[in-house]
């Protein structure tokens, strides 16, 4: 990362909230929160966003859990 952006962004997964530093990519942020990127889809205002996007100060990213259970 060249320019270290200031501030933080928020990740929301179901009823959990994670605060992550701005300036890192969505993918890095998911890992930073201790989550596995393969298990979630990042969205902003209901739209799917690319994992290589860099987070801005104040960003709110909702993670859609992709794993569903049961042996169906």
């Amino acid at each position: 990362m060249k320019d270290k952006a200031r501030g933080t962004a928020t990740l929301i997964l179901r009823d959990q909230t994670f605060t992550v530093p701005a300036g890192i990519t969505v993918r890095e942020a998911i890992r930073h929160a201790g989550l596995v990127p393969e298990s979630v889809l990042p969205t902003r205002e209901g739209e799917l966003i690319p994992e290589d996007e860099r987070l801005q100060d104040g960003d709110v990213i909702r993670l859609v859990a992709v794993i569903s259970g049961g042996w169906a």
Partner: protein
Amino acid sequence: MKRCRKCGERAVIYMRQHRLALCKEHYLEWFVEQTARTIRKYRMFTKHDRVLVAVSGGKDSLALWDVLWRLGYQADGLYIGLGIDGGIAYSDRSQEVVEAFAQERGLHLIVEDVPTLYGESIPEMARRTHRGRGKPCSVCGLVKRHIMNRVARDHGYTVLATGHNLDDEAAVLFANVMTWQVGYLARQDPVLPARDGLVKKVKPFFRFYERETAAYALLRGIAYIYDECPFAQGAKSIYFKEVLNRLEEERPGTKLQFFLGFLKAKKQGAFAAIQEQAEGELHACEVCGQPTTAPGRCAFCRLVTPLTSPTPTPSP
């Protein structure tokens, strides 16, 4: 920033195991095309088949029904009401979602409600029979399989399709390998041909990662039930999926190789001896007429106390 392989616009999804980035429009197109390819490659069904899609209200089954409809297959839906509330009116809400989906697209939906037909919900059946250590999942699986086959036979469907994705299949395989349930290994297959009164069963999404079916539902704007079945929480299947996703994270393609490698080994006869045993003769249940491994009543008829006297289905 990754760009769409087809048009060069900014990609919304990158599939590491395929090294493929796509924009929204081309992802939706790719997903539908891939499904069509899988259906053809594994000879699942053709446009002449009448396909019955088992829909739960979740992302996978609704995405499957949507794709089959777009591809022009004759695909009707089957919703099975399980009578599960779990404090979130799980079954009622699932049914509403499925009915709205069918109505919007003008699709034909068959609804079978377990409590209405058999006088008990799935959790009640599980409690009465003390099956499954407080979890009704095994009773639920048994009842669903029975009803799906009965409806398919009664209404003349030639194929039953379910929305299982690669993560579902890899997790089942992983669990069965961990405990060496070799009998289950022989039976696990994305295509189970029809035999002795069992309708052909297929899983057209078995090559898609769960992430991909979720992305399709999201990008297509399909309204689905996001909440888990209340009984799935803490399920072993979820645990195994998470373990596999951690492996996938370090080595993209791991899940896919694991499952496709299994299918290849099976095709080469690695499980031939067990398969022969598993394919022993089936008998018609003396109550409902559906196929069962042992003579007498089938597992379903031993479980339920039907309100209505069942009419045996004639063998085809």
